[in-house]
């Protein structure tokens, strides 16, 4: 539990930055040799980490759409009022299934596209609130968390986006349920 308490916006930002460095390192043969195996291994690691991040973020919201809808209403003005209820119901399941696909490698490329899109939307929403001076908790991983949203939250989401993007454009992956490792099979 103490480890989980350490996972705040700053530490998550640093971790994701290190992951991206690791991935870039594998591309320039710093950390791995031969090149290709290391590169695939790191992008696979990124894919699984992204999956756990998204699935983990959804768990607290899945069972309590009421609380999540209040959070959206109070803190995120980008959602139009008539759509708040539907958003509160649908978004956690988007996150959960996308996370599951990223972890298992089933339709992982499409899932990483959704992951990137979600991170952009979240970054935009948090930035908007910060610029408006709305003092709310992010509710990203835990809705009753006391940690307020800061610019670190935006940095964290942007780095998550970068991780998702690396997965999205990588031609190969290990441990995938999809037999789409051949780059010719996609795009």
């Amino acid at each position, binding site marked *: 539990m103490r480890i989980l308490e350490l996972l705040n916006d700053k530490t998550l930002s640093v971790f994701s930055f290190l992951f991206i460095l690791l991935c870039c390192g594998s*591309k320039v043969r710093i950390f791995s040799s*031969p*090149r*290709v*195996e290391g*590169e695939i291994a790191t992008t696979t690691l990124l894919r699984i980490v992204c999956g756990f991040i998204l699935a983990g973020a959804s768990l607290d919201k899945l*069972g*309590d*759409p*009421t*609380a999540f*809808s*209040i959070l959206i*209403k*109070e803190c995120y*003005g980008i959602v139009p*009022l*008539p759509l*708040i*209820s*539907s958003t*509160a*119901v*649908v978004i*956690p*399941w*988007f996150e*959960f*299934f*996308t996370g599951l*696909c990223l972890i298992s490698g089933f*339709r992982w*490329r*499409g*899932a990483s*596209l*959704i992951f990137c*899109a979600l991170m952009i939307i979240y970054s935009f929403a948090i930035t908007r609130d910060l610029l*408006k*001076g*709305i*003092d*709310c908790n992010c509710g990203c991983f835990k809705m009753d968390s006391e940690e307020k949203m800061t610019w670190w939250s935006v940095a964290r989401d942007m780095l998550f986006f970068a991780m998702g993007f690396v997965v*999205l*454009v*990588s*031609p*190969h992956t290990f441990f995938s349920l999809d037999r789409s490792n051949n*780059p010719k099979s*996609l*795009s």
Partner: protein
Amino acid sequence: MKLLQEGQGRGSFSPHFSGMKTLDSPERTRQLLEILHRAPTIEILMALKRTQNILNQSAKLAFVVPGKEVFLQAWNLLAFSFIFAILFNSFYSDGIELKAKPPKSSNLQTIIKNSSSLAPDYPGWKKPPTQTPRIKSIPTPTTADNITRLSVVGVKERFDKKTCVFLDARKPEEYQESHIPGALNFYGNELEKFAPLVIPQLMDKNQEIITYCHGGDCDLSLQVAKTLMEAGFTHIEIFTGGWPDWKKASYPVSVGEKP
């Protein structure tokens, strides 16, 4: 290689590998190479080499541009999640009503809509949010000046219902530091300066208005209330506890110049 280097130009051939130094016929050379080729270590090395070549060829494609199929995958995933979520919500005991719309906000309420709480009577909730007041409710007395005094609980109720406008009578610096979400700054010591800025934002003379300042002995909110009464506003109340009580109750706050 050693074999070929040592055997070049020699005319003799030994049938034994240990003494093999020369090569005397092209056929024998081929046989020898076949034998060498079949040696397990060589085969493994060559297989590794072949694998590496294949991987290196594919590595030339350092990234893949997401194509139509990727978007199709994403779309399918979204559609599946959407249908699953709707079905799950309809069978889930704590699910919420999707079709219900929140009450329409007036022009004035749009000022505070982004930072105020949801109305508890919002029909969309099967289970309306319950918030336990952290400070005991106190009666709301009306004084000789006909201005109602409100406790923090009464103020929070009105805040939740979004039916009133808050006027912060403290200094602009204090207002910027933090204030009730949606509140407008109307500094009680500079009424002439703030009145033209604030009054046009109020919807009509019957608008419910709550003023507050530092609580206790602070009379800035009273000055603002009196000014507004003189201007013809009829529904004015004062939050006696003011900002300290609001902050103590840990209710939502906003920071900055904007409401």
